[in-house]
């Protein structure tokens, strides 16, 4: 019996989580199913009838999905490069790639506003080079939101991918090449499938992060609303805590569904889900 007392070490953490996270979440969720003391789904039915809400939800999903895909595309070559080098250069590159996480969201977003604005750096350069005649409308669109979010979350994807890629031996690529695969085919058939576990972890982090991000979409999105901003407005501006709780519950549900779908894809892409 004495040996089994190790679980006691878990207790402080568990109590903390229970009191300050699990209980509030249950209270929030259960409150959404109550209408004047009775159990009802009216709140949800009303929400899903609301075309504006559906549009905001879709908008958010689209932005998060695009952010995740872009992060994957940009991270794959970068992480592969970082995972193949050694020594000092590697630590320098990892530190550099984590840098966006170390800067304040507000500072980061304002820099993007300066770059992407109507009279901003980007438009000025493109017009001076005579690539365009009229200034582009980038700021306050989903595009500017995606740019800001990719900038913010890229480090999470890079770190997750470097982690798995470091464990893939060079011999595997050379074995594939000696069997007739070009570099690209070796990457696609060997490296990529073995990266799937890292890819899933990175995608979940980036997707959930984008879905719940507030500052960046609020500053770069303009009139384009995302669900987190909508939630904030319901709670703080309209003081409608019931509606805000419903939005929060829907966000949690969407997150779970997406994470589940990603795990499903992962198990199809890489039946072993391990590299040994």
């Amino acid at each position, binding site marked *: 019996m004495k040996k089994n007392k190790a679980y006691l070490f878990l207790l402080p953490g568990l109590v903390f989580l229970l009191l300050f996270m699990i209980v509030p979440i249950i209270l929030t969720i259960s409150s959404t199913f109550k209408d004047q003391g009775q159990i009802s789904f009216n709140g949800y039915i009303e929400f899903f009838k609301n075309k504006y809400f559906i549009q905001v939800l879709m908008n958010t999903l689209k932005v998060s999905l695009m952010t995740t895909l872009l992060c994957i595309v940009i991270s794959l070559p970068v992480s592969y490069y970082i995972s193949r080098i050694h020594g000092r250069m590697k630590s320098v590159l990892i530190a550099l790639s984590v840098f966006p996480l170390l800067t304040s969201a507000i500072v980061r977003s304002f820099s993007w506003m300066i770059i992407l604005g109507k009279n901003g750096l980007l438009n000025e350069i493109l017009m001076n080079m005579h690539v365009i005649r009229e200034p582009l409308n980038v700021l306050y669109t989903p595009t500017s939101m995606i740019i800001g979010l990719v900038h913010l979350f890229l480090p999470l994807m890079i770190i997750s991918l470097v982690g798995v890629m470091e464990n893939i*031996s060079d*011999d*595997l690529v*050379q*074995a*594939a*090449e*000696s*069997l*007739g*695969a*070009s570099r690209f*085919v070796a990457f696609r*058939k*060997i490296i990529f*499938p*073995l990266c799937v576990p890292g890819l899933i972890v990175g995608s979940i982090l980036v997707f959930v992060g984008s879905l719940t991000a507030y500052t960046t979409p609020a500053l770069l999105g303009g009139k384009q609303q995302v669900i987190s901003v909508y939630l904030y407005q319901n709670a703080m501006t309209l003081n409608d805590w019931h509606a805000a709780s419903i939005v929060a519950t829907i966000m949690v549900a969407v997150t779970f569904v997406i994470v589940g779908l990603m795990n499903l894809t992962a198990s199809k892409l*890489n*039946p*072993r889900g*391990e*590299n*040994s």
Partner: protein
Amino acid sequence: MSLLSLNHVSVGYGQNTILKDLNLNVEKGELVSLLGPSGCGKTTTLRLIAGFLQAKTGQFLFNNKNYTRVPINKRHFGFVFQNYALFPHLTIFDNVAFGLRLRKMDKKTIEKKVRDILQIVNLNGFEKRFPAELSGGQRQRVAIARALVIEPDLLLFDEPLSNLDANLRIAMREEIRRIQQELGITAIYVSHDQEECFSISDKVAILNHGMIEQIDQPKAIYQYPKTEFVAQFIGFKNFITCTKRDIHGNEAVFSTTHGKFRTKMSPGTKSETSLKLAIRPEDIELYTDIHSDTTGENFLTGQIQLSTFLGKSYQYKVLTPLGVFHVNCSSETQPLAVGTTINLFFPMDKLVNVD
């Protein structure tokens, strides 16, 4: 014309030269081993042939074509790695079929070829397993099957057995030799295990500091090492430095400061200046009674300094006027005490002249 020739090849990173002016010829159907201490350049040579690294200077000819700059995936060579390098996310079938699928063969042909090759390496029935579910020996057989199934023009082995335990190593090397001869494949085999190389090869090349010291049939190397390094590497522990060499027909007499040594001339001419003789510890005969029959040519008197029990034999360290000699004697006889004065006899057919 040889199937494969490396001509004056050198490889190096920055200031560091790994291979310098290496020449190697391999005939069709041969199994040639590259043997040497670690850092001698044997693995580098193999990786160079595979195309994993590039030569700084020199030329690599294969089948009369210049392969020096041909990329790995166009060489059509099979490579068997020390750590197997199986693809962990693919089944045994998919691992073996990997090269065939890249060659755009139809499904039925692939299935047949994979099944046939798994039969050859005794792994039929394992198609649906994953590499992690197999033992070391089984994994290495999968790796061999994967390299063989593409019917490579050349098969390269990079210390394929060094991760296996001793008994399995012996079984696997017989297996490798059987498959290689059965399919008539030309192969190059890298190992640091002498016995392994000698037992499976048609020819053995002994490398040292990025150069080939000697390349010959295993038995020829074993009997007649050409250089002092080769002799030392394959177990000659005793060397005699002589002052003069006189050749009489197929015999030679070497003079030293303490007596003369007569030997048979070894095949292959040695340079005029090579005045070293080598002999294995087990080939020296030892006499305790000193009289006229045990003195004279090929005899040397000494005193036992140290006696070590090696199991099969005793090894004596004997101090003589020509230096220290190691002599092995059967452990069935009574061991000799330290300090005993004895006579050493060097049989003329066991004494080898080396560079």
